[in-house]
């Protein structure tokens, strides 16, 4: 399909919200009460912005800053609130649940994916508010699974397109990590900060891997091992090893977007509007986006824009597109949903480990990137994990089915338990996809339903990894070893590609169907990659902004 010439018919207001609550419905039917006449039109704000960004996570924040720094008038709409980590964040898992996207999402398939705290966040900063901050680069061959194994699809460009962005991000965010890095191509620049200290689980894994001849290294982690000065932000203090990264960092040591790119964006004139949930995307007769409608504290508002950047994460982005019947001509919106195989292995040790201390994202091995004895395509990495008691207890009861006295007995070993996990490639499969369900949410909008089933490749990879991790934990001296099968991250639901026949956005991140619509978040990944996604999402975000600015400059000349 040719590029921007083909334009969808303008669909202006495809959404009709309806009352869901049966009781309220009944009351409304029975009553003769006439609702106050609503103003027929949502008032048009007179200002049109150059670029409107939906979502302020890993995909939205870097490009927001880049566009603001280029002197454009930019506004970001973020569904969640704006927190002050220093005063709002408690060292209390339950109390921190507000960081997660807790609107109901429906899960289907043979291996339904868990949402909420397993998967996605909300608030100014998005899921980076609670990410573990493991920030490895992708490998060059991660982008070419099809070339190398004949499965999945290749990225529309090679590693060289990402390399300079990785470098820039590592230095801007203040990533702590080893120099030289043991795996992947030789780097032009090392990490700006030395690695962070290893927690107990990482020390146990390091010891055992050494005996087994598996190379390990302190991981690249976007938490500061020393004070760091950052443009537009100022001094950020070093990590104090409080081990709570997955429930929000109260010290600002972890490079979540709210302490890095977002203040930079604001310093350059960007406006961030929290608590603004976008529901509609409006278009003119030519199919160009003209603006969005959003809800702010129960009030419906409209913002017009010249260009729209959807960065709402790999569930809400395709959901918005489907709800608005936007950019659908490829038939790939919502399809190709991938989730990293992420099996965890836990064990009990004689040592006093104190899992609440130290960053959870400690040790890594990428020796399994292309294992010689693999019976699957692609590969995975090994990482030590941290453990917060509430999340861990929930996993224990789901997997081991313990309760009552037996549960309490097991949990009394808390200070002696440690875990490791993997993250590996996932292939796109026809039966793994996102769709809109009949069931509506509190806003009256259809809930998203995600179908997920592990196929042969994922099953074999998890099996390979579980065997290896059991061997590592036995060597480290663990007893009572058990595995927790799980999938991590939502990927690929609006993928990038060379042709509008099998992809939603082109290699610059622009929608094939809509010339002034860009998408940037985990949904545009053509393949899952064998590494944690956030650094690559941020790299794509900066690249998308640069490609956009280039095309604007070309147009001006």
């Amino acid at each position, binding site marked *: 399909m040719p590029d921007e010439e083909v334009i969808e018919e303008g669909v202006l207001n495809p959404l009709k919200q309806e009352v869901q609550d049966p009781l309220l419905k009944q009351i409304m039917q029975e009553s003769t009460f006439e609702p106050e006449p609503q103003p027929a039109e949502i008032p048009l704000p007179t200002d049109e912005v150059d670029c409107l960004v939906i979502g302020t996570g890993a995909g939205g924040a870097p490009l927001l800053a880049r566009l603001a720094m280029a002197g454009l008038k930019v506004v970001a709409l973020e569904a969640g609130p704006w927190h002050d980590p220093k005063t709002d964040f408690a*060292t209390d898992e339950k109390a921190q649940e507000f960081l997660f996207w807790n609107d109901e999402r429906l899960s289907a398939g043979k291996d339904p994916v868990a949402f909420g705290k397993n998967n996605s966040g909300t608030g100014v900063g998005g899921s980076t508010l609670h990410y573990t901050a493991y920030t490895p680069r992708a490998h060059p061959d991660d982008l070419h699974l099809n070339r190398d194994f004949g499965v999945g699809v290749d990225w529309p460009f090679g590693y060289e397109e990402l390399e300079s962005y990785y470098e820039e991000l590592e230095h801007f965010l203040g990533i702590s990590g080893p120099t030289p890095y043991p795996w992947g191509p030789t780097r032009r620049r090392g990490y700006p900060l030395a690695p962070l200290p290893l927690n107990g689980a990482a020390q146990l894994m390091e010891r055992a891997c050494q005996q087994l001849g598996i190379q390990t290294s302190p991981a690249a982690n976007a938490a500061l091992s020393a004070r760091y000065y950052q443009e537009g932000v100022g001094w950020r203090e070093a990590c*104090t*090893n409080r081990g709570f990264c997955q429930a929000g960092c109260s010290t600002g040591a972890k490079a979540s977007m709210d302490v890095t790119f977002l203040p930079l964006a604001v310093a350059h004139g960007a406006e961030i509007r929290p608590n603004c949930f976008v529901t509609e995307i409006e278009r003119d007769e030519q199919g160009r986006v003209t603006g969005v409608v959003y809800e702010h504290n129960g009030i419906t508002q409209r913002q017009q824009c010249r260009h729209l950047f959807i960065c709402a994460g790999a569930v809400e982005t395709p959901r918005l597109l489907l709800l608005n019947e936007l950019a659908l001509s490829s038939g790939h919106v919502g399809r190709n949903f991938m989730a990293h195989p992420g099996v965890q292995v836990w064990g009990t040790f004689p040592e*006093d480990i104190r899992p609440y201390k130290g960053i959870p994202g400690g040790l890594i091995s990428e020796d399994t990137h292309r294992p010689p004895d693999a019976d699957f395509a692609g590969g995975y990495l090994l990482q030590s994990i941290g453990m917060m008691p509430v999340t861990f*207890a929930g996993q224990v009861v789901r997997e081991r089915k313990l*309760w009552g006295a037996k549960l309490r007995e097991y*949990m*009394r070993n808390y200070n*002696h338990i440690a875990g490791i996990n993997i993250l590996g490639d996932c292939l796109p499969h026809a039966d793994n996809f996102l769709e809109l369900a009949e069931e509506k949410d509190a806003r009256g909008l259809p809930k998203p339903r995600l179908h997920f089933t592990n196929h042969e490749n994922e099953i074999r990879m998890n099996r390979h990894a579980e065997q290896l991790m059991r061997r590592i934990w036995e060597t480290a001296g663990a007893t009572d070893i058990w595995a927790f099968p799980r999938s991590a991250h939502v990927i690929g639901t609006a993928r990038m590609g060379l042709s509008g026949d099998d992809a939603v956005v082109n290699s610059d991140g622009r929608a094939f169907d809509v010339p002034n619509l860009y998408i940037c978040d985990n949904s545009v990944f053509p393949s899952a990659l064998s590494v944690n996604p956030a650094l690559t999402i941020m790299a794509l975000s900066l690249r998308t902004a640069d490609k956009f600015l280039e095309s604007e400059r070309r147009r001006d000349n």
Partner: protein
Amino acid sequence: MFQQEFRVLTSDEQASVLQLVQEGKAPGEAWETVPAERFFEEMLAELTELYYAHPLAQEEIGYVGMADATGWTRLGLNELEPREPEAISSQPGL
């Protein structure tokens, strides 16, 4: 099952009812419409998380992660800071 309200059963009786619900074998009409195993797992996970969010339950397992205001510096295996309580059991698994 015991022809009485759950609340008045002895704790052993309560446990055997729960066990049957977990295994999807509990008798009664209610369980014909609700998938018992799934229901039990969701309930259990929710209650367990609430339970271990309580300071007393956290004390029981030796968790003092909330005492982190000044940060942690002694991260080695078997290394404690002065404010960390001693191990609750010297032999794990006991």
